[in-house]
Structures are given as structure tokens and as C-alpha cells.
């Protein structure tokens, strides 16, 4: 009753750990069998290894957190050799989150990953708020988002999910642009940009000053964006932002998500994904549904 099909993804259930909150799966594989997940999204991958921003990179906020990791990753070659090859042993759709400083970098990384034949879909992260020379600038202008998606689309055959930034005046415009450019799906939302100051030092808590806000605090913003984008595009949405339990999953799917990303909740309860998967069937029954597919976009019916 939880099974779903999305472009390139045969999901046992709609629960997908979100990018950056699950590494490349190794750490969580020591806690539970990854095969129970709907799919898995990796940390962002860039062409070369990146060390990310200076620390502190983590700050707590009211029912949320800021992170300024800054795309730390071992670079695409290493990722393919050490991470994606390792992930092969699981019977699990793998989505690789791709980031870069230029459209060329997105294309190149995407091509290399596609060539590896190890993954089921790509998620183009055009919304990372934590690096100056990349990520978010591609996600705040519809035209650039279009060009980037189109450039990858033309060179790569894998299903493409484009992950949008919520830090925009008009999310619908951008969603439509990436749909038009050939995206197979949309991931919504990445983090909102935020800051916390340390009262003692007077300075930002994060060394990078700003960071990405995630957690329950942002859920209403995410729900609204999923709801609106659902009404305006025909490709499926992977919804995320603040999901903490099975009821939140239902809320996102009502709003229009076909599957959901679980991000920072993994830090608070490392078993959150299996727990939600276990709770979903009963929750669906409680609300009178026989199949998860009935829930998608229910708020619009």
C-alpha cells in the first residue's frame, strides 16, 4: 500500500532521506537495513573534492537548525569509486545530489555519474545557500535555472529532479522553468537562509555567518510551496522541510508531494525513517486511505 513509481524510481514507500542529512548512507547502514527505505539521496557531489566552510557549521534555532556545511564532499571520482560502488549492494534507488560553481560543472558531474551506471536519478541542487560561487544563484533566477537544467538534460539520460530554493519571490516561475527545461521532477524545499548571533561575542554563531535553516520551523513555508507548485506543474514533487513524523509526511503528500525527503529529523532520531515507514500504513488507514497514491494532492481534490 506504500508503493509508488516516480520517474526512474521504483519506491517501496515515499520515504527518502534528504541530501546532506544522510551522507552516502554508510553511517546509517550501521543502524538499520537501508533496503527498507523508499530511496536514498546522497550528499551533494561536485567535480573536485571540497572541504566546505570553516567551523562552527551548526547552530540551533527555535525548532530548527542552521547549517553551513558548504558542500563538503570527496569529489565526483571518489564518490563513484568509494560511495556509489558501495551503495550498489543495496536494492535501493539511489539519487545523487549534484552541485557546482558553473553550469559546466553541473553537466560534467552529471555526465560522470550517469556514465557510472550506478544510480537511478540525479537531483540538481540549484539551491545551496552555503557557497558563494554556486548553488543558490542558479536557483533564484528562472532563466538560469532553465539554462542549467536544459544543459544537463541535453547531455544526460538519467531522470532529473531539480531541487529548488525557497529563498525566492516566485517559486512557481522557477518550477515552471525547470519543467520546461526537461526536469522529470522537483524537490522542494532546500533550506531558507538564516543567521544567529552569539550574544557574548556579538558575532554570528556560524563561521560562515549565514547558514541554511531546516527543521519544523520551516514546515509551513515548505507546505505552501509544495501546494502551489503542485497546481502549476505536471511533474512529480519530492516534498521536504521539517518532516518529523508520519503525520507530517501525510501533510506534504496532501499538499502535492509524491514522495518526501527526511532531512534534519535524522539527526534527532537516527531511526526516524524506519519508524515513519512502519507507522504510515496504520496512519493511512486511520484517515481512510487504502493506498498511498490516493493521498498525493488530496488537498486539491
Amino acid at each position, binding site marked *: 500500500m506504500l508503493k509508488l513509481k516516480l520517474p526512474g524510481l521504483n519506491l517501496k514507500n515515499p520515504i527518502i532521506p534528504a541530501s*546532506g*542529512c*544522510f*551522507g552516502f548512507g*554508510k*553511517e*546509517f547502514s*550501521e*543502524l538499520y537495513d537501508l533496503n527498507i527505505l523508499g530511496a536514498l539521496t546522497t*550528499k551533494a557531489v561536485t567535480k573536485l*573534492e571540497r*572541504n*566546505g566552510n570553516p*567551523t*562552527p*557549521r*551548526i*547552530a*540551533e*534555532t*527555535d*525548532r*530548527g*537548525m542552521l*547549517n553551513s*556545511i558548504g558542500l*563538503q564532499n*570527496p569529489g565526483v571520482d571518489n564518490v563513484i569509486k568509494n560511495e556509489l560502488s558501495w551503495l550498489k549492494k543495496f536494492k535501493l534507488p539511489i539519487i545523487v545530489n549534484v552541485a557546482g560553481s558553473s553550469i559546466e560543472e553541473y553537466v560534467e558531474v552529471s555526465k560522470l555519474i550517469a556514465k557510472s551506471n550506478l544510480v537511478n536519478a540525479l537531483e540538481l541542487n540549484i539551491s545551496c545557500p552555503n557557497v558563494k560561487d554556486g548553488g543558490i544563484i542558479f536557483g533564484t533566477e528562472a532563466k538560469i535555472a532553465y539554462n542549467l537544467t536544459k544543459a544537463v538534460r541535453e547531455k544526460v539520460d538519467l531522470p532529473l529532479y531539480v531541487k529548488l530554493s525557497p529563498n525566492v519571490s516566485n517559486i512557481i516561475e522557477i518550477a515552471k522553468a525547470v519543467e520546461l527545461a526537461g526536469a522529470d521532477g522537483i524537490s522542494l524545499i532546500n533550506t531558507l537562509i538564516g543567521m544567529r548571533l552569539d550574544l557574548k561575542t556579538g558575532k554570528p554563531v556560524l563561521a560562515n555567518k549565514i547558514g541554511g535553516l531546516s*527543521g*519544523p520551523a520551516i514546515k509551513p513555508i515548505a507546505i505552501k510551496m509544495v501546494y502551489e507548485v503542485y497546481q502549476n506543474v505536471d511533474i512529480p514533487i519530492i516534498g521536504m522541510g521539517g518532516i518529523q513524523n508520519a503525520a507530517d509526511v501525510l501533510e506534504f503528500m496532501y499538499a502535492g508531494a509524491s514522495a518526501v525527503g527526511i532531512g*534534519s529529523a*535524522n*539527526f*534527532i532520531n*537516527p531511526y526516524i525513517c524506519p519508524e515513519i515507514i512502519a507507522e504510515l500504513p496504520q496512519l493511512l488507514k486511520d484517515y481512510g486511505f487504502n493506498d498511498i497514491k490516493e493521498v498525493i494532492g488530496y488537498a486539491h481534490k
Partner: protein
Amino acid sequence: MIIISNQEIASDIYELTLQGELACLIKEAGQFINILISDKLFLRRPFSICAVNKSQKQLAILYQVVGEGTKILASKKAGDKIDVFGPLGKGFPLIDNVQEVLLVGGGIGVAPLYELAKQLHKRNVKVNTVLGFASKAKVVYESEFQRYGEVYIATIDGSYGFRGNVIELIETKKISFKLIYSCGPKAMLKALQEKYQHIKGYVSIEERMACGIGACYGCSCKPKDMSLPNFRVCKDGPVFELNEVII
């Protein structure tokens, strides 16, 4: 886990004893646990394991009240349940054929050294301990460490023991050593690193954490060998070789 006791043992410093199966999973001194103190807070809080008693399924931590989380923790009572995740991280390695070691603890950083002292003592290693605190009111675990060897106390304001920091104490008292284990404030660890570049040693370091298991890359620190990728304090540490990390 269940709280067995939660006592203020020095000014704003508490000793918390917990009981649960988790205690039996601890492998090394220097590992830590990640506590969900209250559902008012979003993130867990990491604390070094200070003492383990597997037969009673108990562990203890020492913590200093520094913010909202530790303040709430201080209000918990024996019998309360608390959500603990762990044990996490890599602890202090025990080195074969070492007869004598120096433990250097600064402030609340004494915590992970205590279980280590216990284990070293059990292996018949001579344990010398140097503990530094801000002032007399902050001194903890002096007599506890004395069970396992000689203990020197330094306080910055001289209100107890030696006046000065731990390095001044080591130099003044001419304490010699071949292997050093340390935990404490960054400034202290940095000073140790500079002073004892030639000496083998291990340090436990702190960084702000989210996941505590190596999945979020929140707690990075840089290796001295720039050709290596970043370490994750929670997974590759919190204990590192003295001269392997940039503190």
C-alpha cells in the same frame, strides 16, 4: 536511559549517572553520548562518557551548565528517563608496553580522562594526572583521579594548587612523560600541540555537532596532512593523535 543521580559537584558542574543497556556497548574511554535533553530543544547535545560500570549497566558524565540545554539537564531528577544515543565516536587507544602516561585535563575536559585513568590503572600503567581549572570553585574529581595515581592541580587564579595553566605546571614541576592523553579547551590543546610536537599523544576535541555519527559533515576538522580529507570529529574522533589535527 534512567537517571540514577544528578548532582552538582562543583560550581555549575554536575555529575550525571545513567543506567541502561547502552552502558554495555561502550568500547573505549573517550567515546561520547548524544542526549536529547528536552523536546524544547531541537538538537541533541554531546557529552563525553566519564565513567562506565558495565556490571551495573551504568555510565556517568560530567557536564558544565553553559546554555539552555545543560540548564534543563541540571533540573532533571533521579528516576527521570532520558533519550540517549550512543556510544559514539572513537576513544583513546590503549598503547601496549607503555609503563607511564600523563593525563592532562582542562576544566570539564577532565571527564573522558577519568574512565581512561581507571582502565590504564587496571593495566598497571602508572598514571600521572595534571588538571587545570579556572578557580577552586571549579575543581572536580581530584580525589577520584588520586585513586589511580599522582594528581597535580593548577588553577588560573591560584585559588587552589598551582597558580597558572597546566603547561606551566608541567614545566615547573618538571613532569616528564612519553605518552600524553588530553582533553580540554581548544587553547589548551593547541598549546600542548605546539609544546610537545615530538611526543606521542592523543587529544579529544569538540566541535558543534548535529548528527553525531558522521553523516552531516557538521563537525569537520582539518588534518595537518593537507592531502587528507577533512576529519569528522564525531566519527573519526573525538580522539585524535596529538599532532594529526589542526586545532
